[in-house]
């Protein structure tokens, strides 16, 4: 059954086809919206399909642990193949992508200008991200890694606010520098593997068996790390991020914060760490340091912000620090915590950006001083704002707590000092979160005193997100179980 329907290719190409179709009907806003939503939902259903499969079944020719696998020749000259595979980790990431895209589509219901194009770019971005999460060929991975940038470039640049051009080019250049160096590293690895085994291939499982001299490994791993660290982003390579997050339109910020930063973490887990075990060990202290600095520093800086989106941007990086920390520890508990944190961060931060987008839409401002007493004005929105903020502050019972706890417990075992720094960060996180909540929700009602209440469409998005937030906070077991088998394979290499 798995071989009859190429689910993996479909996961990639369905959104791309959707993008083309939506682009084609772009004249009519309503049609484009519905079409985009339909494709989003179809993708989600498709992404759910593997949940029904027997995940223990070994696929012929597939590397261990991958229960869905596709392999086609592509560029024979370099041994580049169109290889896709799905294990528990990628399944979760694919589901996440599908989910966030639906949210993004619904959140961009009211885009005024060129909505068809906007939605089409969103779907194209989704296709690229899905491809990245599924590819088992390093070249393919890189291709998607960079292809992602194009829709994002336009999303920020065309529909952005503030200084969109500056922000989008800054975003692009930053990530581009990193990824080009990564390209060199990929080629070097490929050549080395070819020279050692005589088979020139970009297949990830094969490349894992390359013996890399320690010194060279450091350089190569450094290139990978740089690329991933920029997109993560890790301190101090983050300065593109507040600008980009801030100036992007709602869906753009959502995709950036929820998905694009995850691709970097995914790359570290799936590629960089397993490929260079020794080098990654050597550079781990560095990652600890930047992760901890990131958690605390960004939380601190977030406190100083006046612009809500900018504050959330810093908050988002601060939380990504936990992911970095978990990966750096590279123990089963810590990494599964990191993966969980990736999911939770995507949901929570995404939800916060959506809510802030709604506030922005209503009050036409993101400046904290323009807000106050929102609780009295839009209680429903305020409720969700509060819930998501509390989730972000790590209140137990909501999703972020679980993953942060797992990460911290896991990291404490390996590197207590780093974990202690992160604990400090959790206090700082609360400080800015509470400030945000207070300045927006509490206090005297600011002008305009009447804001439109949440519409059905907005409400459905918020409820959807909140349900996931609570579900993952209360019963994250199924998701964590999915990580187990792949992590065992990855970490025992």
């Amino acid at each position, binding site marked *: 059954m798995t071989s009859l329907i190429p689910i993996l290719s479909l996961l990639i190409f369905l959104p791309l086809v959707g993008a083309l179709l939506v682009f084609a009907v772009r004249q009519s806003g309503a049609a484009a919206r519905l079409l985009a939503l339909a494709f989003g939902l179809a993708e989600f259903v498709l992404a759910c399909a593997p949940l029904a499969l027997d995940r223990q079944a070994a696929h012929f020719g597939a590397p261990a642990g991958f229960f869905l696998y596709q392999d086609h020749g592509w560029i024979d000259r370099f041994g580049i193949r169109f290889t896709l595979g799905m294990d528990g980790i990628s399944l979760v990431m694919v589901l996440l992508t599908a989910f966030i895209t639906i949210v993004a589509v619904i959140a961009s219901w009211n885009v005024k200008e060129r909505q068809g194009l906007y939605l089409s770019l969103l779907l194209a971005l989704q296709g690229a991200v899905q491809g990245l999460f599924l590819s088992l060929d390093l070249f393919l991975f890189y291709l998607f890694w960079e292809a992602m940038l194009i829709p994002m470039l336009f999303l920020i640049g065309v529909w952005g606010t503030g200084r969109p051009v500056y922000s989008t080019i800054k975003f692009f250049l930053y990530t581009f520098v990193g990824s080009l*160096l990564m390209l060199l590293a990929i080629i070097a690895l490929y*050549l080395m593997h070819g020279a050692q085994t005589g088979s020139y291939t970009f297949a990830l499982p094969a490349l894992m068996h390359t013996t890399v001299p320690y010194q060279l490994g450091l350089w190569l791993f450094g290139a990978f790390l740089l690329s991933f660290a920029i997109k993560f982003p890790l301190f101090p390579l983050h300065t593109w991020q507040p600008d980009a997050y801030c100036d992007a339109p709602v869906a753009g910020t959502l995709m950036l914060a929820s998905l694009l930063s995850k691709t970097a973490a995914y790359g570290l887990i799936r590629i960089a760490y397993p490929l260079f075990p020794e080098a990654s060990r050597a550079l781990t202290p560095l990652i600890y340091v930047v992760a901890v600095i990131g958690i605390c520093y960004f939380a601190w800086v977030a406190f100083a912000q006046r612009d809500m989106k900018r504050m959330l941007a810093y908050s988002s990086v601060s939380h990504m620090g936990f992911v970095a920390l978990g990966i750096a520890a590279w123990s089963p508990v810590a990494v599964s915590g990191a993966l969980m944190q990736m999911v939770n961060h995507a949901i929570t931060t995404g939800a916060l950006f959506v809510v802030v987008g709604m506030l922005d839409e209503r009050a036409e401002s993101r400046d904290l001083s323009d807000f106050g007493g929102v609780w009295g004005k839009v209680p429903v929105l305020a409720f969700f704002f509060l819930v998501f903020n509390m989730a972000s502050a790590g209140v137990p019972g909501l999703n972020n707590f679980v993953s942060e706890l797992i990460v911290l417990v896991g990291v404490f075992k390996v590197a207590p000092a780093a974990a202690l720094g992160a604990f400090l960060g959790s206090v700082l996180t609360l400080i800015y979160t509470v400030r945000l909540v207070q300045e927006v929700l509490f206090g005297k009602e600011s002008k305009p005193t009447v804001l439109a209440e949440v519409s059905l469409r907005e409400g459905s998005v918020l409820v959807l997100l909140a349900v996931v937030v609570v579900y993952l906070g209360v019963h994250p077991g199924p998701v964590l179980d999915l990580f187990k088998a792949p992590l065992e394979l990855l970490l025992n290499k």
Partner: protein
Amino acid sequence: MTLTELYCLMPIVITGCAALFVLLCGPLLLSSSLTAIGVTASAAAGIWAAFTAPAPIQCIPGLAFTPLAQLLIPLFSFAAALTLLLSHGYNERRILKGEEYPATVLFALFAMCVLPCATNMLILFLALESVSFAFYILVSMDLNRAESGEAGLKYLLMGAVAAAFTAFGFALIFTGSGTLALSAALARPENRAIISAGWGVLILGMAFKLSLVPAHLWTPDVYQGAPSPVAAFLSTSSKVAAAALLLILLGHFPPMTELRVPLAALSVLSMVLGNLAALRQTNIKRMLAYSSVAHMGYLALALLTGSRDGYAAVLLYGAIYTAMNLAAFGAISSLSFEEEREQLTDFTGIGFSTPVRGGVLALAMISLAGIPPTAGFIGKFFIFYSALKGGIVPLAVVGILSAAASAYFYLRVVAQLYMHRTEAPAPKPVGFAEGLALCAASAAILVIGVYPGPLLEMVETALR
């Protein structure tokens, strides 16, 4: 000369005859039929070459239909056909009349067809100089703009000096090796110094054709001054022709290790300077000129490896670069009406007011920046792959970093096209010919970007 020999050389014959025919019958025919003749001839030459099996032996003294020619002639024909298609509308809008224009384009194509077939240095040299010579004329052909003539003179002066250098190089090589025939070029260790001096001078001459630093300075002026379709043709085919000449020579001569440092210097300087100088350029044609300096730097990087992979990368990149720059200059030319549209600010909001042309320009920029899934990425990948394989790591790193910086100015164009609130005056719609040319170029960019396998195979075959 037997029929099969003629058969092999038909592209040359077709293009040469077409050039003469256009020149002779020009006054009697409409400009559209001249274009049609030109395009047909180019297409015929290209298709003929593509579907003719290469013959290893000389067809007639001095010429052979080599595998390389089988790859390059269709490429040049493609570029020439697109140039003619683009020029048709452009020339009408800019009131450039006369049969001289298509005839000269065909003459350039004729010389280009000869070049990869040449089996000795004299033919090579003459073909190359004829290509340049055609471009001297084409560049200065816009009588409405003083810049055009000015650019032509500058190009000619520089070109003549460079030709002198090239010729001097050939002279020294000839003096050292005692033959002009490529196949018989022998290593004469006792004359190595003379030959290497010849190579040194020759490389500089080639640096001019490829516009490598420090022989690049003419490039921005000439691109700016030339009519846009000519700039498209000039920036693609003439460079590929020069690169092909170097490939042919390097392929036949024993490796000259002493050339590594000068070539490396040319390459690295070009990559860095080209990309940096383009950063703040506000004239898009000049910007593309600096960009072409940088891209030729990448080419030189691949040449430097001296390996088969490197040469394959050169050819592939040449083909891809042809598509990219044709699209870029093609879009610019199709957007130019009474005035040449060349300032960056002239493109504000064009991406939305003319979606196709704006889209093609944006696609070309993205491809030039080397972002997948466009052809530019495949090209860049191959170049840096061969560089790493050839062990020139520091240069590769410098190159890749400068390539990263280059994204800035390409994206600036994209931003200008789509991301500004104000809008420049929207251009009028264009004709079928230009649309066809733009579509062909962008289709090439996308197809090569997604499925480069066949082209890679062709490149491999060409080097066999």
